[in-house]
């Protein structure tokens, strides 16, 4: 069933950082919605602002401007007290399970932390029951309760990170590159876990990653970011079958496929991603775009709905930019 009312509504969200050389536009006016129970994938290359966006959305960083509405309430205007309650509903899992866990806390202490901070249980017995239950949920053997992070491999550590984020029964979880530090086999185990948790508890995910095949595997819809802006947003199928933005096309064509003799026409982009400090007016991608016209330098393309559910920020999508050949 199509829900008419989105759970999360992000409008013109901005996050600038002050640097010596000027304002760094990490997130520069992005708008999108997330429905309850879906996974929105956020992809892009290093420095495109995807992690910053994930953090600003749940107020781990203060936004420079814009709105983030959860069920119609703008959480950016919440008082600290109100925000503290809100934090129980929004959680984040970080990329690096090696540095995001306190090395001096045992597994049970790490999982207990969010429960203690929020005074969820009054008795230790109840709390321990919950910890054991969480360990079962994420597939950590109970005998590891008193182990320390350094004794565990990356996959198990990431399971601790996930257990911590689930401890307060959140509605919404930002997964910031949760499998990037893991080997493919362990990565597959964690992806399956996240999938089954979502089915079981109906979580809403934002899944941030630079790995397109991983994002495609988990997401319902995908937003592609380039230099602080969303350039394309679409359901995962259309995005992969028929990418509309020239950057998405290049990005998809750059993935080496693990199949023999299946080479696609690769679009090799010129140059590197330009600096996000004081970016000039116009399309952020125009310097590397094979289809650029004069107008691309002058006018910033808005993210517009080209077809129902398919958004693209390109003046010439479908007009000049040819559909990719598979």
């Amino acid at each position, binding site marked *: 069933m199509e829900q008419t009312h989105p759970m999360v509504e992000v409008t013109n969200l901005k996050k600038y950082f002050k640097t010596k050389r000027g304002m760094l536009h990490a997130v520069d006016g992005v708008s999108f919605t997330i429905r309850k129970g879906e996974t929105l994938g956020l992809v892009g*290359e*290093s420095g495109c602002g995807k992690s910053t966006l994930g953090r600003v959305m749940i107020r781990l960083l203060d936004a420079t401007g814009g709105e983030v509405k959860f069920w119609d309430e703008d959480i950016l205007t919440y008082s600290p007290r109100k925000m503290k309650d809100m934090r129980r509903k929004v959680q984040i899992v970080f990329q690096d399970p090696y540095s995001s866990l306190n090395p001096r806390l045992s597994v049970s202490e790490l999982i207990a932390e969010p429960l203690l901070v929020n005074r969820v249980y009054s008795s230790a017995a109840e709390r321990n029951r919950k910890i054991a239950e969480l360990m079962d949920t994420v597939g950590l053997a109970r005998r590891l309760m008193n182990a320390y992070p350094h004794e565990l*491999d990356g*996959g198990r550590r990431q399971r601790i990170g996930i257990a911590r984020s689930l401890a307060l029964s959140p509605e919404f979880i930002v997964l910031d590159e949760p499998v990037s530090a893991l*080997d*493919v*086999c*362990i*990565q*597959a*185990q964690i*992806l*399956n876990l996240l*999938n089954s948790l979502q089915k079981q508890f109906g979580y809403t995910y934002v899944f941030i990653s*630079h790995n*397109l*095949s*991983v994002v*495609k*595997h988990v997401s319902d819809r995908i937003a592609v970011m380039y230099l602080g802006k969303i350039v394309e947003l679409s359901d995962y199928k259309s995005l*992969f079958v028929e990418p509309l933005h020239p950057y998405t096309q*290049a*990005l998809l*064509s*750059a*993935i*080496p*496929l*693990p*199949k*023999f*003799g*299946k*080479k696609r026409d*690769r679009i*090799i*982009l010129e140059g*590197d*991603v330009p600096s996000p400090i004081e970016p000039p007016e116009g399309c952020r991608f125009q310097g590397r775009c094979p289809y650029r016209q004069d107008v691309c330098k002058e006018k910033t393309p808005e993210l517009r709905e080209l077809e129902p559910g398919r958004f693209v920020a390109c003046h010439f999508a479908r007009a000049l930019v040819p559909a990719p050949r598979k």
Partner: protein
Amino acid sequence: MAPLLQIKNLRTEFVTQDGIVHAVNGVSFDLGEGETLGVVGESGCGKSVSMLSLMRLIPQPPGRITEGEVLFQGQDLLHVSEEAIRRVRGNKIAMIFQDPMTSLNPVITVDKQIAEMVLLHNDVTEQQALERAEEMLELVGIKRERAKDYPHQFSGGMKQRVVIAIALACNPTLLIADEPTTALDVTIQAQVLELMHELRRKINTSLIMITHDLGIVAEMCDKVAIMYAGKVVEYAPTEALFTHPGHPYTEGLFNSIPDLDSDEEELKVIQGLMPDPTNLPSGCTFHPRCPYAVEACSKDVPPMVEIEPGHFVACPVRGKPYLHLGK
């Protein structure tokens, strides 16, 4: 004709407080002139250590090469003098490391870093070496004007190009690239892979590419060696490996990668974890995680069996000649 490089039963171990780590456990493979071999495996499978062993770059102690032969152009690199191996390193066999950010010296301009390699192995003046450095920069797609720049003035992809220029400066016969694009973004990775393709056509060096990305292997390599717990478990021409993998571990690797062309709900994962290298399982080291394991797997170390010309599999259960071609 003898192959360019022949590795026979190479074993490297490290002595640690927790016991002896068997990092490389009898690795054997050949590499012909002009060929590209992909070495694939997860972290800790011994792929990097086996390459460092063949260059004799293992710190000793704690490491030691206990067994094996590395025949390079007929010469056993494990038993030549320190001076002789130094003439090979960087000159005939060059290496590209994973992280371009840390493999360059931050306080020396890039042209000097390339010239250093040229001066070390050739009888040239400094001026000639610097001239060669500029040529190399141009070859890898960096303008001559940038020769006097420092590494921090380059982006990640450009730094990796500099590292490639250093590696190729002496026209090596063999290039070993250890995860050369892992630290790079996918569009930059595409640029660097394209460059390596092009350079190989021009220079015709042999290449060993260490990677965990089967996509890169499909694109770049003629042959593949799949490593698990310090051993090569499958060794095959790329086409054979991708169309009919023989070893259960190879199969598991393929199943772990989300497929871009289909919509699988759940990934078929390999159960369990990599074994502890100080305490490897008996028999086939993969047997505790293997869905096809039979009793004999925990007892006998499976030999490499040639199931079709050039396709070797170390699994007596699945690695039967043409067993699952019909799949």
